[in-house]
């Protein structure tokens, strides 16, 4: 795709415990993330099945489109804060966006 106003960014996807939502949002906003999207998911990983209908034991997916340096800062911070004690998984994809100014 070669539209004039397009540019490359990173899409960082985080899957983690839903009870972390409030805390994690505060954290990424403090790092300068201006936009994100959250949805409710369930799944299995190292910490076992997380699919209960019981609110606080299922997962959320947080998606953040931003530039590479910010994505790295967020990755780093979440790793250092949550990796040890929480169920969390993250991955990064290259995306093209239309209005690059929206995603610093």
């Amino acid at each position, binding site marked *: 795709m070669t539209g004039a106003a397009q540019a490359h960014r990173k899409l960082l996807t985080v899957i983690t*415990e839903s*009870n*972390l939502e409030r*805390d994690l949002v505060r954290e990424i906003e403090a790092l300068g993330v201006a936009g994100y999207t959250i949805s409710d998911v369930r799944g299995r990983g190292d910490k076992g099945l997380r699919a*209960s*209908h*019981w*609110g*606080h*034991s299922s997962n959320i997916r947080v998606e953040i489109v931003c530039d590479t340096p910010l994505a790295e800062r967020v990755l780093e911070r979440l790793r250092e804060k949550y990796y*040890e*004690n*929480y169920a969390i998984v993250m991955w990064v994809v290259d995306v093209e966006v239309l209005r690059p100014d929206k995603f610093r």
Partner: protein
Amino acid sequence: MGLDPIVLFFALGLGAGILKADLRLPPAIYEFVSTVLLLSIGMKGGIELARQPADGLALDLLLTLILGILLTFIAFFILRYVGRLDRSNSAAVAAHYGSVSIGTFAVAVAFLAGAGISYEPTLPLLLVLLEIPAIVLGILLARGVKAGTPWGEIAHEVLLGRSVLLLLGGLAIGWAAGPEGLEPVAPLFFDLFKGILAVFLLEMGLIAADHLGGFRRHGLFMGAFALLIPPLFAMIGLGFAALMELSVGGAILLATLAASASYIAAPAAMRSAVPEANPAISLTAALAITFPFNILVGIPLYQQAAEWLLRTPS
């Protein structure tokens, strides 16, 4: 007076869950049902408070605080030095058992209604108060009093948690509106109470089944802990009930509260404040063992003990 038939719904849920039957209640139903139960318990207390103002309330509240702290300490020391759990897990489990289970309280309220036993209107207030010290103490025991603990956040979470808020809100509404004022909402909040509690227990049974077999380590010790703590704590609760000079009904409820373990407020608070504790240990104990024990065996037992204890002197 034996088992309340309402616990059959718990058994049905538990059975369905164990058999991995295709029976789920959506989370929205759980939230609706628990909202109505919490408001209803609060409103009943508030209506009674409006009728007969509580004497000596300050002392009762103080004793309740002390009860909460005492139970948490006892649980912590048993876990840490008998069970040899590490510090974080001991603190987290202790917070669950020092705190209370509203579902268990609701079953006890239904049980008393069925048996025609009345109780003090302050009990819902004591319930709220008993939820709090255990959680705060649990965090302190796990982390020590060090800098960086987000006490503001924790206070917010504990004091403005869903259950505290709905109970206190219900109390205030009941107190302000009085029995006549609430008559138009009685069909939903009072007449349906037991039916809605039945749906809640069905759901609790399903959830408890999910947590069966949740211990990896400490299984034997934790199983014994989850079965023996309730009667022990119930007896301590009865002692405090005697100090407060509660009626038999009030004593049964306070004993039930002491015997019960939190599975809503405490897990949420521990997960964010003591993340290194393994939530599976405390949830399995509280949900899959202590909760069924209390509603199936405990409550009738505590009734007998209360009647024996409080009627002896007379």
